[in-house]
């Protein structure tokens, strides 16, 4: 009787067992190899390794070159194991069009974080960028204008240009509702549910969705911080006024930077707020002195003002008047309430603290208001 051709119910698929065993060994090797011999297993496991059409610089090289060539630095922050970092690196940064734009318009610097969320064990460039507030939880691109190299991520994202901020109606600014406007620039490829966001052409690009969006970002991010910051509604007098003798009205000298969160906050919160600019225009001779990042020659001409009033950090407000014994200086931006007290004191000679809590922790301020 010929044997039956059908397999028994408890037939053992030996080929499957063999394949499973072999793959298990291989997988184990790759996994442990990645941790303990990363160099040998980089091509097997590391999606962020491999050749690239982009001419990467180290952080130090890139920052020096950016200042020399007046090109923005493009920090490409990648996180190992992060899906969007893999896709950004493997698909987006290998796109020939994207690579061409980067090589032509930017100084690209790639920084790879080994693991997201582990803040305590960072070293080298990762530590420096983390101290500057760069996002290390997911793949992101940050464009830093050459004048702002070395500044914090918060300062890079902040602006006080109304067009860059997307302010269409300035009425809210006059009411003092600026807060959150100038730093609300986290946009990018993906939202919290993984949905794709449209490009907005700002300084930071979080996550990655597709090549076109990356190219859109790269084409528009170079424009970031190219427009001048707002001067508000204060009727500023020309800088030559500083050479003239003091009049009956006290003179208010505002020393502000063209970039940075503190100066941006002062421009938006003080120079745009109706109560403040009306008071300044009515009771003071206002003069705006701007310090430009990256323009040493321009700033040297104004350095004497900082030395004269002992100002080491910007922004600052200085009031001098014929009736005042000595100039009064407010160091840093102390917010609306602090500035209100300062202006009141400058006009009346009385010390007024309307809200001690705000004075101690003024919103948007980096430095406590200080009266001389």
């Amino acid at each position, binding site marked *: 009787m010929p044997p039956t051709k059908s397999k028994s119910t408890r*037939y053992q698929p030996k080929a499957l067992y063999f394949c*499973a065993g072999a*793959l298990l060994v291989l997988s184990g090797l790759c996994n442990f190899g990645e941790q303990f011999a990363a160099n040998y297993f980089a091509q*097997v496991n590391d999606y962020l390794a491999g050749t690239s059409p982009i001419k990467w610089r180290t952080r130090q090289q890139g920052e020096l070159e950016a200042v020399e060539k007046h090109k923005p630095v493009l920090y490409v922050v990648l996180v190992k194991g992060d899906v969007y970092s893999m896709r950004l690196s493997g698909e987006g940064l290998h796109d020939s069009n994207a690579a061409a734009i980067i090589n032509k318009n930017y100084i690209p610097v790639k920084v790879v974080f080994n*693991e997201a969320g582990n803040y305590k064990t960072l070293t080298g460039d990762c530590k420096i960028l983390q101290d500057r507030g760069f996002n290390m939880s997911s793949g992101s691109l940050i464009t830093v204008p050459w004048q702002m190299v070395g500044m914090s991520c918060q300062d890079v994202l902040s602006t006080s240009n109304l067009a860059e901020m997307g302010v269409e109606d300035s009425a809210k600014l006059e009411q003092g509702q600026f807060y959150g406007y100038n730093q609300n620039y986290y946009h990018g490829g993906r939202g919290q549910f993984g949905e*794709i966001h449209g490009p907005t052409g700002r300084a930071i690009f979080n996550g990655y969705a597709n090549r076109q969006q990356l190219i859109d970002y790269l084409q528009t991010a170079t424009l970031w911080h190219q427009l001048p910051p707002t001067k508000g509604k204060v009727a500023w007098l020309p800088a030559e006024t500083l050479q003239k003798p003091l009049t009956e009205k006290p003179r208010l000298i505002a020393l502000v930077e063209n970039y940075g969160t503190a100066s941006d906050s002062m421009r938006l919160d003080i120079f745009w707020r109706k109560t403040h600019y009306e008071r300044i225009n009515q009771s003071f001779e206002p003069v705006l002195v701007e310090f430009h990042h990256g323009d040493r020659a321009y700033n040297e001409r104004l350095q004497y003002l900082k030395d004269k009033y002992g100002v080491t950090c910007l922004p600052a407000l200085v009031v001098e008047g014929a009736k005042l014994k000595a100039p009064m200086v407010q160091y840093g931006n102390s917010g609306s309430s602090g500035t209100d007290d300062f202006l009141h004191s400058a006009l009346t000679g009385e010390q007024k603290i309307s809200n001690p809590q705000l004075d101690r922790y003024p919103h948007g301020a980096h430095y406590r208001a200080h009266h001389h």
Partner: protein
Amino acid sequence: MNRAVCITTWREFKANKVRIIMLTLLFLAPLVVFTMRRCTSPEALNEDLLSHPCMASLFTLLWAAGVIGREVQNGTIALVLARPISIATYVYSKWFAVAFAASLCAVEAVFCEHIISAVNSPALLWQTEFLTNSVERVLLCFGTAAFLILLSSLVSGLKDLALLAGFGFIFMTLATVGSMVHHLCAAANFDAELARGLAKSVEHIFVGIIYPYIPLSVFFSGDLFAVGSLISYSTLITCSLALAIKVLTRKEFSYAAD
């Protein structure tokens, strides 16, 4: 592959109203979220709002929960195996039936999301993102289905869900302990590399099992072909199926086992 086993699996799912309701909710949830987003954010009208491929894991879980365990529990597996069909074929068929059905649901869901985006903004219709998302979903379904088949073969009824929860709990515990040890080592200035390496290895194993994701678009880059995830993906499928077959061949089946 046995066609009858596949069809029985799908019919059994269709008969379960709770699962049908959950499947419908899984379809609708992203659509509702994205519709709300479109209503509240004008720029979202021109965005391709696609949910993450990990949604495929939920579809697979819905299809695979107790797919073998319930047959063991009510004794129908003994009837199935009375036919000229090996346990290996039975496991393959179950795996294929679950993975295929879950893939179909997951791709259909992303298709609906994409079509709604394309109605608002027709230029989005040809975006490759949709295709990549769909293929990644299919791969996820087949990977996750293999692991869930293994869990279902280990216990009877719907106890595989408890096993899955236990698996997740062990993972969280290990991750927390690993992180604590690492930070303690770092605080005490010990060389924490060994601890970190071991913790990361364990983490990779768990993540590879629970979320067998292959970032497909990365493979399109040409000169970069990291095969690590492909190897772990194949390992998960082969090992899970092999173990499931091994476990079932060693079991004695009777009518109404529990």
